[in-house]
């Protein structure tokens, strides 16, 4: 099997990512306007929101991969689910890190029980459990099956978690609700580009992880054959 990084498609994606990552950074730091109220703190929005989007996307993929695995019992769906869960949790962690960095100067406190932040934290904890199940379970088909079920249950729980946390801390509705269409073009397009770059990064990393997991299961299969 050829190396992931020597594939033509991987090289192209990695190249695009490297260029546009720098472009986004330049646009964020030098081109976009400085928010009169929040000053430089607002700039983290170009990274915080795309991280949250990718985290949600990752968990959505976990759910669909779980459903497909249960129906088809094909190992590739399990690889996709696991890879997406890892990335979803990684980007969840980024949301949980960038959120407080922004909140400290703006809200005066690094943490608030804001519904979106709290939902992300709860999802993060649920997925830590998911990885523990994967690590403590055996390598067999059963672990793959129960992980698929967990991924589905966790995602279906998201709306209930969100609504409950929203009304539980009704006084903590401080989260900015920017309407993107009302933003000036520099903000809008930089944000869109950042969103695109993050999504592409997610896809690239996802393919990479799936590739590694495929190799891993191949090696394990060889070991059992001997």
């Amino acid at each position: 099997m050829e190396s992931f990084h020597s594939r033509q498609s991987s090289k192209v994606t990695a190249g695009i990512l490297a260029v546009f990552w720098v472009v986004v950074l330049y646009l964020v730091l030098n081109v976009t306007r400085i928010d009169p109220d929040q000053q430089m703190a607002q700039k983290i929005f170009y990274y915080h929101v795309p991280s949250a989007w990718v985290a949600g996307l990752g968990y959505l993929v976990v759910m669909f991969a779980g459903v497909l695995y249960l129906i088809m019992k094909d190992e590739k769906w399990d690889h996709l689910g696991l890879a997406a869960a890892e990335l979803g949790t990684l980007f969840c962690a980024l949301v949980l890190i960038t959120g407080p960095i922004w909140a400290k100067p703006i809200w005066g406190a690094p943490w608030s029980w804001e519904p979106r932040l709290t939902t992300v934290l709860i999802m993060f904890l649920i997925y830590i459990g998911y990885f523990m199940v994967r690590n403590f379970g055996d390598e067999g088909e059963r672990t793959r099956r129960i992980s698929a079920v967990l991924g589905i249950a966790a995602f279906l729980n998201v709306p209930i978690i969100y609504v409950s946390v929203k009304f539980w801390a009704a006084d903590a509705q401080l989260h900015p609700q920017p309407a993107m269409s009302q933003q000036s073009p520099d903000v809008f397009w930089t944000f869109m580009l950042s969103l695109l770059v993050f999504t592409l990064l997610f896809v690239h990393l996802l393919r990479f992880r799936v590739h590694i997991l495929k190799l891993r299961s191949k090696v394990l299969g060889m070991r059992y054959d001997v």
Partner: protein
Amino acid sequence: MLAVLVRKDLLIEFRSREILISMITFGAAITLLYAFSFRPSPESMQTFAPGLMWMVFLFVSVLALHRSHSLEKEFDAFSMILSAPVERSVLFISKYLSGFIFLVVAQMVLLPLFFLFLQLPLPANLAQMVAVFLLVDLGISAAGSLLSGIVMRVRVNEMLLPLMLFPMVTPLLISAVKSTASIMDNQPFNQWKLWFQLIVSFVIVFSLIGYLVYDYVSEE
């Protein structure tokens, strides 16, 4: 078949009494710890009681939920149940119901203790309180039975179950605490209808997920 399975769980418990006794003792011990650590003054206790109460019940429920599946591992009983001509979803409902029954029975003992030790006034609307308690117990038992089945054959499952269960039931816990607080505060149903609806949705979602996917969870 469902009745037979539930009866089996209850009968095992009736003979061994290991689940209920440990649930009640554990619950009473936490209640005592609360009473000592918070040195109850009736006013402050009123504010915190619903939250403390549901935490006790959540902790206690883990004992029953974990045992409901780990029990089946002894003498490989689960394989034999699986080989019986019974649908897996029925097996889930039986675990769900027996977990619910254990939780209700433990609460019937623990709740009076809780009100007694923490010197709380009885709520005026007992019927509402009972309805909320029964529904939340259904929710805990639905999510818990599913997760307990999931972690059953995983190493260190006794540790994993609370780790998975607690974040998963956060919305249920929040709604339970809010509803209980409103009932104890004598608020009209309209004021806390939302929390009631959330409890009902949680129960429906997790009962359905469990019913639909237990087949995959229980398979050897």
